[in-house]
């Protein structure tokens, strides 16, 4: 019989029961982000961009890393959010930052829901192509609806009123933008963290690991995927809205394949399905491209490409996956207590 007095005391049961608890190192990224604010006041524009990218990557991690939905069109939602904020403000309808972000989330969620209803009937390559098509359609729509979206030129210089009526969005000193983005990122992250450790999040992992079995245990698989896709779209929309507010303009780059591919690379680089992969990947990508561009301005993407090839071939878990393997390796070499 089992050596444990009750089943609840079993290490596996205790591990599962305590899986969602905050780990000691988890405040670290947030402390680093605050330290960055103090240490690099001249780099806050770059920092804001980084925070927005992290949020976008987290939204992708939810569908790709957890639910296993392969998508190459996630910028559709980022763009939907950015254009929502941009158009509302540019046409003088609504510009208050926080409610605008909520509107961005709602519009992106709607796009996610409607497209998800159709494309989540498919899997694999068909799904990949359909996500790409959705994004291309939106991009072309934004290009054509010139009166509303500014077409190819986008919407320049949208005016965002001060946050809470107090803090100005100054494009030269983006202190407000940085802290605002950090706050929004934190709230969204807490939400996603709660979600992935919930039974719902667990069932998304189940769908990723074995869709057929999820059907066989009575899970409404398609509905779960649509809900997940919609939530993820909303978060991507918030990221897009933040981007528009921080930069005070919107253009077609928010909707393009370039952005969708970059966020995918970031997630693969950091490690998908790991919650913090988005952080590590975004920092690694942006710092690397920053440095490589400085060292080798003409062909800096070559270095990134090489790194990606190495990750894809030898380290499927990304940077975090390598870290985990190393930790386990050192753990095994250390004499057990």
């Amino acid at each position, binding site marked *: 019989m*089992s*050596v*444990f007095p009750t*089943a*609840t005391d*079993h*290490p*596996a*049961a205790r*591990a*599962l*029961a*305590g*899986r*969602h608890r905050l780990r000691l190192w988890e405040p670290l990224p947030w402390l680093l982000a605050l330290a960055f604010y103090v240490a690099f006041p001249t780099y806050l524009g770059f920092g804001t961009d980084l925070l927005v990218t992290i949020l976008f990557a987290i939204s992708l991690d939810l569908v790709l890393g957890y639910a296993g939905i392969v998508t190459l069109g996630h910028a559709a939602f980022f763009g939907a959010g950015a254009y929502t904020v941009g158009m509302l403000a540019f046409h003088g309808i609504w510009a208050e930052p926080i409610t605008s972000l909520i509107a961005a989330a709602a519009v992106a969620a709607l796009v996610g829901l409607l497209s998800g209803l159709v494309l989540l009937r498919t899997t694999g390559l068909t799904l990949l192509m359909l996500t790409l098509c959705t994004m291309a359609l939106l991009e072309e729509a934004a290009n054509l609806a010139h009166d509303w979206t500014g077409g190819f030129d986008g919407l320049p210089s949208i005016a965002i009123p001060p946050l809470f009526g107090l803090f100005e969005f100054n494009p030269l000193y983006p202190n407000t933008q940085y802290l605002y983005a950090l706050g929004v990122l934190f709230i969204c992250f807490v939400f996603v963290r*709660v*979600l992935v*450790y*919930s*039974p*719902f*999040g*667990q*069932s998304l*992992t*189940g769908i990723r*690991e*074995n869709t*057929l*079995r*999820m*059907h*066989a*245990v*009575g*899970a*409404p*698989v398609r509905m779960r995927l649509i809900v997940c896709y919609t939530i993820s779209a909303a978060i991507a929309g918030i990221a897009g809205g933040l981007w528009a507010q921080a930069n005070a303009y919107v253009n077609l780059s928010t909707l393009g394949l370039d952005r969708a591919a970059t966020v995918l690379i970031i997630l693969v680089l950091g490690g998908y399905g790991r919650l913090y992969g988005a952080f590590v990947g975004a920092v690694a990508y942006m710092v690397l491209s920053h440095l490589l561009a400085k060292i080798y301005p003409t062909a800096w993407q070559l270095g990134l490409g090489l790194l990606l090839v190495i990750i894809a071939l030898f380290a499927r878990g990304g940077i975090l996956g390598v870290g985990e393997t190393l930790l386990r390796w050192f753990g095994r070499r250390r004499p057990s207590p």
Partner: protein
Amino acid sequence: MTALLETRSLSKSFGALLATRDVSFTLEEGARHALIGPNGAGKTTFINLLTGVLAPSAGEVLLKGHDITQVEQAERVKLGIARTFQINRLFRGLTVLENVYMAIAERVGAAPDMFRPAGKRQDVIDESMELLTRLKLADIAHKAIPELPYGRQRLVELAITLGLKPQVLLLDEPAAGVPSAESHIILDAIDALPKNIGVLIIDHDMDLVFRFAKKITVLVRGAVFAEGTPKEIGANPDVRAVYLGQAAHG
């Protein structure tokens, strides 16, 4: 008395191929029933029709007298029809405990919950551990699936399905691929199944079938070829011919 599970003139065709022909079949409560037949007899198609993976071309499926022909797969699971797979379909990246948790969370309705940690559903964890203890899997509850020998993996396959507390249990070759040294753990687990549930086992392994079944249905080319007690089936010259003919070819 109405049967637990019943099919009436069930047929399924894939183009010109009639995979299931006019099968009328009943599974009683507490039954230990086996479905046998040569390769390509349509056993797996029949299972897929019972579980709702496939829709029949004609005929109906009834659970306790209620027509469930149009009911979706996930709903049928909720109504108490559960199956295991011939080839393991496990959540390979997760632990044994998490595999079972997944099924129980679905059954008790915990799975749609987004705002509470999975670990706070102590009821689901406890029930999972109890089930694993019953199947003598508790000691490896923390292991990931790829770390387990194949026989244990087959047992996890069964554990997930039992976590659904089925009234109708469909076992698709439960011991397939398990080395003979380990197969006793599967057989013991099958012997220990709750007496009240109706079990239909699909298998090639005649030792297992004759040890387990009180009743045997033989399926040949999609149609019911013979039905009876193991003794009757064992003595049936036609059945012998089908299997011996198979052996002579194979």
